[in-house]
Structure formats: C-alpha cells, structure tokens
C-alpha cells in the first residue's frame, strides 16, 4: 500500500475525531430541542478567538485559556437558546433554522468588526511525528484524543447520570417528561450549555491546527450538518460513524485530486446517501 495513501487515511481518521465532536454537539441539540443550529460552526469560531486572544495575545497559559473558551461558548449556547430559540420554539422548523442562520451572519460580521479579516494563529508550533516516511501532526493527534475523550465523557454523562437520562428521555417523548417531574426548560438550557461546551472544546482543538478568521466557520460548518444528517439527525452513534466516513472521503479524495475535489466528493456522497437512506446510515427503520 502506498505510504502516502496510508498517511492520508490516518489524517482522515484524526480529522474525523474533531468532526465527530462537532456532530455530537449538534445532534444533541437536535435530538433534545429539535432545532438545527446553523450557526454552530460560528460558535466554534468564537471559541477559537477566545483562545487566540487569551493565549496568543495576553499570554495566559493554554489550559486556562482553553477552559475559559469552553465556558464562554457554553454560555453563548445558553444565550442563543434564551434569546433566539426559546421565543420561536413553537414556530415551523424552517423558521428556527433561518433564525440561527441570521445569527451566523451576525457572528461573522461582528467578528469582522472586532478583529478584522486577518488570519491569526496562536503561535504554538507543535512537533510533527515522523513514522517511517509518514509525517503526522502532533496537534491532530492531541485533537483526536481529546475529541474521543470528550465523546466518551458525554456518553457516560448521558448514560449514567440522572440529568443525562432526563435529556435522553426528553428526546424520546417531549410530552410525557413533564409528568415525570423534569423541568423541560431547565433541560433545554442544560442541553444548550453542553452543546455550546462541545463547540468550545472543538474550538480549542481546531485552533491548534488552523488559523482563526471570521469566516472559518464556513469551512467546516456545512460538512458538520452533512455528517449529522448522514448519521440521522439526533442519532449520536450514527453521527459519530458518519464523521469518520466523511473525513476519510475528504482526506483520501484530497490525496488523489485536490482539497476542494475531496470536499465536493463528500457532499456528492452525502446527497446520494440522502436519496438512498434518508433516515440515516445507521437507522434501523
């Protein structure tokens, strides 16, 4: 097997970790609150700016900056829910989709206003691992490991804790949950916070690899939605698997052709799969 093909396979796997984390957050929001946050990747952009400013500009220690970024984005998630989603919970789904789309515009432009359109990076150069003739970026390895840990922690929380059970229950039957003594509003806020927090975590991992600029969200936002839909909206395991399928298509497609063609292939595969299995790849129905 071609060593460079193997390298791009591994890079695809590593990219898949971060995409899976994003897909988990978006799927959680969708499964529980039943809205699609089109601006999800823009929340990630906000988190990346927080890390950049605290660490790259004010020279805070990275872990502290990362922690604050996660908390900030989690708070943004709560704010987004309170200000935008809560008033239109009963509206047609498409209005909710578009309202968060308006937020996408707002966040992009606001970031442009505050920071300009320059590309920034945190100035951290992580070593590159050389295995044979392959070179694997250490930043990607860390990102992958942290993403898998984050996903695992989310799984344990949802499966074992009372609140996690309540969150899963509300995704299954919105009507009955109130009778069980669960405050729906509180669960929604908590879910938004967790969804935001996951975006914040993803931001910390992405800022290690990519420069931050106001439009960075557009470069992985659409692919995240595709992953969620492919996995079946709200189906977390499906989203997790789909993330790796898509990232491999992008990475290997990029290896054979070019970066853009790789992404085009991923979108085309997405469109084709929607026609074949509109309910998601892992759905049993």
């Amino acid at each position, binding site marked *: 097997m071609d060593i460079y093909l193997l390298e791009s396979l591994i890079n695809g796997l590593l990219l898949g970790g971060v995409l899976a984390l994003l897909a988990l957050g978006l799927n959680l929001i969708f499964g529980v609150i039943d809205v699609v946050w089109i601006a999800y990747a823009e929340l990630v952009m906000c988190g990346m700016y927080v890390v950049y400013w605290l660490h790259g500009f004010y020279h805070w220690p990275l872990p502290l900056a990362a922690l604050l970024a996660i908390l900030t984005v989690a708070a943004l998630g709560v704010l987004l829910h309170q200000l935008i989603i809560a008033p239109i919970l009963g509206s047609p789904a498409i209005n909710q989709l578009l309202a968060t789309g*308006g937020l996408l515009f707002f966040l*992009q432009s606001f970031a442009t206003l505050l920071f300009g359109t320059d590309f920034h990076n945190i100035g951290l150069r992580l070593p590159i691992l050389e295995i044979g003739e392959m070179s694997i970026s250490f930043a990607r390895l860390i990102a992958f490991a942290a993403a898998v840990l984050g996903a695992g922690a989310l799984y344990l929380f949802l499966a074992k804790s009372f609140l996690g059970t309540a969150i899963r229950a509300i995704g299954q039957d919105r009507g009955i949950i109130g009778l069980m003594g669960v405050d729906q509003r509180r669960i929604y806020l908590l879910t938004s916070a967790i969804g935001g927090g996951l975006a914040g975590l993803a931001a910390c991992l992405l800022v290690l690899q990519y420069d931050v600029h106001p439009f960075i969200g557009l470069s992985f936002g*659409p692919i995240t939605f595709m992953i969620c839909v492919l996995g079946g909206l709200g189906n977390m395991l499906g989203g997790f698997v789909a993330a790796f399928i898509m990232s491999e298509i992008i990475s290997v497609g990029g290896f054979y052709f070019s970066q853009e063609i790789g*992404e085009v292939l991923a979108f*085309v595969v997405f469109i084709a799969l929607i026609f074949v299995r509109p309910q998601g790849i892992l759905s049993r129905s």
Partner: protein
Amino acid sequence: MMARAPWLAGLAALVALPWLAPSSYFLHIVILILIWGFIYTAWSLMGKFGLVSLGHGAFLGTGAYASGLLWNFAGITPWLGIPVGVALAVLLALVIGYPCFRLKVIGHYFALVTLALAEVARLSIVAARDLTGGSLGMTPNGVPTPSWFALQFADKRYFYALALVLWLFGLWVWRRVQASIASAALEAISEDEGAAAAIGIHVTRQKLRITLISAAMTALGGGLYGQFVMYLNPDTLSGVGVSLQIVFAAIAGGMYSMLGPTVGAVLTIVLGEALRVSFGTMWIGAANTIYGILLVLFIIYMPRGIVGLIVARLRAQPLPIRRPAL
C-alpha cells in the same frame, strides 16, 4: 380596473427613471435592486410553498459562470451563453429535485441537501481554478467598444432597461404562477403532502415544475448580474453565503407577496450601501452586523416580512359594513 392606476403610474416612473436619476451611482443601485429583486422573486416562488432552498447560489453561479466562461474561452456571445447557463441550471435542478421530491426529502432534509448543492457548486468553481481563477474570481474579457453582441455597455441606461425588463418578467411569472391551478395544488402540498397526493395531485411533478422555473430564473439573474458587474467570484455568486443572503432578503421583504422580495432587495441593498457609505472602510462588518440582528428579529417577530405585515395591517382595519345581500 381602478386598482390599475397606481401600478401604471409606478411603471411610468420606472421607465422615466434613467432621465430623472440624479447620478450614475443612483442608477447603479437601482439596477442592482432590480436584478436582485428578480432573483429574490425567483427564490420566493419556491419558498412560499414551503420549499426552502438553501442552494440557490448553485443556480446563480451556474448562470454567471457558464456565460462568462463561454465568452472568455470561446468568444460566444452572452446572448447564447446565458441561455446555456439557464439550461445547465435547469438540468442541475432536475438532477437534485427529482430524487428529492420522488423520495420525499422535505423540511430540514431538503434544506440541507440544497445547502450541500450550493457548496458543491462553490467548491467546483474553486477547484477548476485553471479556468475560473478559483477564489480570486474572474473578469469577462472587455471589448474596446460597448456592444449588444458582447452585452457590455458604458452607459448604465442600457443595463437599466435590461434589468427593468427582467424584473417585470419576474413579476409576470409570479402572477402567472399565482393565477394557475398549480398554485392551489402546491399550497395543498405544502400543507399536507399525503393528503394532497390522496386527492390526486401529482406531488413530484408540481414541485419539480416550480423548482425548475425558480432555478432557471435564478440562473438568468446570475447571468445578467455577471455582465453588469463584470466580475465573477465563487463566494459572492455561489456557496452558502449568497444562498442564505437570497433567503433572508426574500423573507425580510415578505415571500408571500408579489412585491415582497423586491422590497427585500431595496431594504438590504439600501441598508448595506447606507451603512457602507456612513461607516466607510473604518468599520468593516458593521453593516452586516446590523443586518444579522435585523434578520434574527425579522424571523422571530415578523416571519411574513415587511410587505406581509403591511398587508396584514391593512386587512385588519375594520371593513365598511356591508348591507346583507338580499
């Protein structure tokens, strides 16, 4: 009959506008409003029946790039190039639309499939950078003397005439669609697809027809826009960004009324220009920041748009008491 007068007066004013316009800049803005108003109208033809496409950027880009590439590389006049772009956009709409409607991909899923389409278009244009100039964009080759053959004019009044005809054509299509039986069928489909099918409406055919019309008009608008601004860029003519811009302007104006999308164009373009002129380049992004906030507020508090709100207000006024019919 009596309702005709204000329309005719408005039309006369529009025809006379180039000679009344205070400046070339003013005319430029009006042309932009007419072209985008046409494109937003095209989108609303689908949007008002619940077919929310987030992928109209793909059709826009197809129209603009087909004509631009044919002109630059084969010297083919835009008079042929734009129809080729329209045909390609219709083909694209067919390839995506038919399976979508046939397999009942609706709501979120339809929106996201079309979103993927917009990205496919943008990325394909960027990937074909040898031809299209990639993200840097491309300029249709200029001609030494302005001509109808090249569809390039130094005098903006020519473009104004073309844009006005295009816009009026858009309104005409809107009225034709609204008066047709298909409109009732599409409304029934947007209420309840299953029930519509049960009373004998051919769901796939009805949806597909309006989608093809909408895609064709969008590509047509894209083609003329490319000729007017003489610069094609994948980010402003395809992809998610412009697709969302189309959706939002149409919604802000009001996608359920004939003039709503045009009001959306007036609103967004005038607001954008006003903010750009007053803030200058000092505060890049200020215009869009305010725009974004307005969009969110619009969708939350007045989802039927400005024109929709005005119409609702007018209707809410107490009607004169009618004598009971004997």
